């Protein structure tokens, strides 16, 4: 890696201007802004003096030094939280429970009706409801934790498509056993959907799950149960509770890779018309950053499984690739993701997609085809490039291809991809790449998660600087729902997974409503945290200067070596003084002045923009 980086560093920080990648003249991003961007997307803070002195040398960004910083930041708890959020979206595990659709697949796990008589009182009902919510949280988190294991242990990340060893709780396994029940009702739906008695048994004492069953994470391998093997029932809770780290247990439903998690299937509900095609397409998007396309000329050697309705005309171009892939799923499963009654069908399967063909006889084969597909490395490099840039990189960009190759050659080590990509000009825009023609070194606006997370991290820094106990580190959910803050943060756009779309929807720009929402959010937070219920500061006229210093350094993320420090510090002082005059010099003058400085910084580009 060092050799490659050294080769790249020859152009770092220079506007070579001679590559002519396209009509838009290249402008290098100021090194301090590139550093701010990388640190901001990773952990939400601004660059410290230490960061600046290590990474910016003689006015140029040292790519090796930045790579070292990225490696350091990867291991911070701040990045960990953001990484989990990124993975839950990119691995498409972030379902919202749908009371209409999901019960067909998973049973009535959430109690929409509050039948106190049945549950024997509100305590029991509330406990069951709370545990169903824990279950959903576990389901969302399970495969993200699995992916994190690959990252932490430097294992091949393409194994996300093939692994049967998942991080699970007892609760998750019990639910999977519940779904593994082969019986279906007359509508081909899960017969447990209306069986509240079973759900009650599962969720409540004396023999059901307890709260600890939703917090006992460990890796368990899910083997494929032979036809003559019946996996332990979902009521065998002590059995699942007794499984220890690295044990294995059988399931009849194939539990292989990110595309066969309960969360993924709850997110992408199929039906009798769709017949698993949504899962196929979303798996291609997740694994390979591609979607079915009539232009894909890959030879599909078989026609088994193609619906007659789609066997000719324009539809056929997609269905010829897609439908034979489904066979390994539809052979023994219904469109409710349930096991069929025997006899199963036995159609041959074939994966033929963007230049790669492989015969399929099992769901494991399908996962292997994704993992072995030549586009896996480029797909994930593009996925992350788009995520961190808030805009698509160019698939033909030599630098993107180089980073993807480094990722692949490392044995698909995700950490290597992060380090290589986040220190690359694709993200830093320190020298020209083809991607610049698409992104033009974009500075995007923080979306809700990023903004709230950034505020959380920076508030913690302020609290620590003030000698206070810092608030809990999270994505900023608590902060952005404090008092009336939720009303305003709710109006700030959110990153969203969109069915059928390769990239997340990441609104990159501010508009009137989001701007106003941020203004109101900042106002609300200033009222709470400065002289309000969660006060940051102990007011004393002698503290003004140091408090202003801290707001500039920690809230704005502008340390003293930053080129804009002096100007921002001066502006903060002026705002403070104007507020002092405007509000009058009463008992609350210092509070009001600091609140105004807080709002000034919070509304400004240093907080709202990513790497301004």
């Amino acid at each position, binding site marked *: 890696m060092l050799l490659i980086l050294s080769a790249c560093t020859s152009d770092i920080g220079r506007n070579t201007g001679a590559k002519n990648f396209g009509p838009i003249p290249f402008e290098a991003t100021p090194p301090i*802004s590139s550093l701010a961007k990388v640190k901001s997307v990773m952990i939400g803070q601004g660059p410290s003096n230490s960061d600046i002195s290590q990474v910016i040398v003689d006015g140029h960004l040292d790519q090796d030094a930045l790579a070292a910083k990225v490696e350091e930041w990867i291991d911070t708890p701040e990045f960990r939280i953001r990484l989990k959020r990124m993975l839950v979206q990119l691995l498409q595990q972030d379902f919202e429970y749908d009371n209409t659709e999901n019960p067909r697949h998973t049973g009535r796990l959430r109690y929409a009706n509050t039948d106190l008589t049945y549950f024997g009182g509100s305590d029991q009902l509330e406990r069951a409801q709370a545990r169903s919510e824990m279950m959903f949280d576990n389901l969302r988190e399970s495969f993200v934790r699995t992916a994190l294991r690959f990252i932490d242990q430097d294992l091949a990340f393409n194994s996300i498509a093939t692994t049967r060893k998942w991080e699970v709780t007892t609760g998750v396994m019990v639910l999977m056993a519940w779904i593994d029940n082969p019986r279906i009702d007359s509508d081909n739906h899960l017969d447990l959907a209306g069986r509240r008695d079973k759900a009650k048994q599962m969720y409540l004492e004396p023999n059901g799950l307890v709260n600890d069953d939703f917090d006992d994470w460990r890796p368990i391998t899910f083997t494929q149960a032979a036809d003559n093997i019946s996996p332990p029932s979902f009521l065998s809770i002590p059995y699942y509770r007794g499984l220890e780290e690295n044990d294995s247990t059988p399931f009849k439903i194939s539990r292989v890779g990110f595309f066969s998690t309960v969360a993924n299937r709850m997110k992408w509900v199929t039906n009798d018309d769709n017949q698993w095609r949504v899962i196929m397409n979303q798996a291609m998007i997740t694994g390979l950053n591609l979607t079915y396309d009539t232009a894909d000329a890959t030879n599909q050697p078989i026609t088994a499984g193609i619906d007659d309705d789609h066997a000719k005309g324009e539809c056929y171009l997609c269905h010829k690739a897609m439908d034979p892939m489904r066979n390994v799923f539809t052979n023994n499963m219904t469109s409710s993701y349930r096991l069929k009654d025997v006899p199963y069908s036995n159609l041959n399967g074939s994966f033929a997609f963007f230049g790669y063909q492989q015969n399929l006889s099992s769901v494991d084969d399908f996962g292997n085809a994704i993992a072995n597909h030549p586009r896996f490395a480029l797909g994930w490099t593009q996925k992350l490039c788009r995520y961190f840039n808030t805009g698509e990189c160019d698939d033909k960009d030599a630098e993107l291809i180089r980073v993807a190759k480094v990722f692949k050659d490392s044995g698909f080590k995700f950490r290597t991809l992060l380090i290589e990509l986040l220190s690359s000009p694709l993200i830093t825009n320190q020298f020209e790449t083809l991607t610049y023609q698409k992104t033009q070194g*974009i500075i995007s606006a923080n979306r809700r998660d990023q903004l709230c997370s950034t505020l959380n991290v920076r508030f913690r820094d302020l609290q620590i600087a003030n000698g206070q106990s810092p608030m809990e580190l999270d994505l900023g959910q608590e902060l952005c729902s404090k008092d009336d803050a939720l009303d305003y943060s709710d109006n700030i756009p959110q990153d969203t997974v969109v069915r059928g779309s390769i990239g997340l929807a990441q609104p990159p720009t501010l508009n*009137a409503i989001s701007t*106003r*929402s941020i203004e109101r959010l900042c106002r609300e937070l200033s009222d709470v945290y400065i002289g309000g219920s969660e006060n940051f500061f102990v007011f004393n006229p002698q503290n003004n200067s140091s408090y202003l210093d801290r707001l500039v350094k920690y809230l704005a993320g502008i340390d003293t070596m930053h080129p804009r420090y002096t100007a921002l510090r001066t502006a903060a002082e002026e705002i403070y003084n104007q507020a002092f005059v*405007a509000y009058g010099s009463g008992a609350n003058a210092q509070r009001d002045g600091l609140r*105004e400085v807080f*709002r*000034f910084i919070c509304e400004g580009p240093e907080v709202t923009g990513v790497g301004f």
Partner: protein
Amino acid sequence: MSLAELNRRQFILKSLTAMGGLGLKSVLLNLPPAFLLRGAMASTSAKKLIFSHNRSGDPLNGNTPGSYPNVPLNVVRHPVSGTHASSFVKTAIQLGPQSYDGAQVWGTLSSDIRDQMHFFRAPTLENNHTKGVYVMSVRNALKNKEGRSYEIFPSVVSYENAAALGIENPKPMGFGGVLEYENVEEAPIKPKALKELFQSYTNATESVMKQARDTAIDALYSALKSKGTLAQRKYLDNHAISRNQAAIYATQLSSYLTSVTNNSTINIIRAAVALLKINATAAVRLSFAFGGDNHSDADLEFEAEQTVNGVADIQDLWDEVKSLGLENDTIFMINNVFGRTLEPRGPGRGRDHNTWDNVAIVLGPGVKPGVTGGLDPNPEFPYQRAAAFNSVNGTLTNPDVPPSLAHASLVKSVLKICGVPEARIEKRIKSGIYVPNLIA
């Protein structure tokens, strides 16, 4: 913010958005130049849209003009009991020069509404409450701006007409219920929150300090605005424009929302029309109720009550449209997820979902008043389903539009009424025909 300062900001904003500054405008608004150019070349008859969609599947097809064939009540049911029974007596409803048999309540609408109001029988061929997006995209026949995938009707109008109307935001805005733009769900707006978000600063000191903060931000980054990178300049310009727009919204919206106290229907109407008035969007989505999912409405009394209120909502909405001077620029349309069954379903039962019949309502300039389509007397399902109709006169004589194409034809025709250029309509929807009986 002082008036002088606001005027300066408005002047800058208008200058920036003038066609002469296309490149700059494109950069600032993050919209492709083609979008802006298309607006310049688009039809000058572009209209704004207020779109009502109800996932309940309301029984409009049981009482609107054209829904009272000469058959007994055991074939086509109407409300006959309760407080509002008189509102459902079969009455000749004047729609422009012609009258049509319908529930009396429709005749209570003012004549200026009935002179540009059309009732269009168009089954959605769906009977599932969750299929709102599917129905609003005409079962995916309505395509996105590239002519692929799908897009829902209000989002097509908002995108296609935004530029022509000088509206920067190509997305629709909604007040509840599913609303997608480019397959991404849009967050619903609550009138009370909108009022509070954009209310002017009542505290003079806060207003002064807001101006001070804006001025300080502008001053602090003034050097970057002229000498920064393109990305920095774009971000700062967008930041400034958003602040300016928010300030303008605050100034303009607050006067229209003064009477908003909660999120009731009348306040949704006020907020929706206000957003159109200030050019925040070209299309808004809301939901008027006309009886709802009335499976167990045994005597149809709830249907009667809600329909009376729903008709009043239409009157309130158009009054609000007129009070803000938008009556020549706005189309109102109701198109629900499906209609309801017409024949009695047995004791204690109301109406079930009807895949095969539904009535849409279109109101506004460019709409020919009247009725299109009718109930099919076919003895296999007498008067329970929409019949094929004649697109020129709307009757069942010499029909040329089968029920399977009625919905697409309705949407295609309303796009034309909304002023979307035909070339763009053809890109968006291939199926269906323009219905002369609907288009004035």
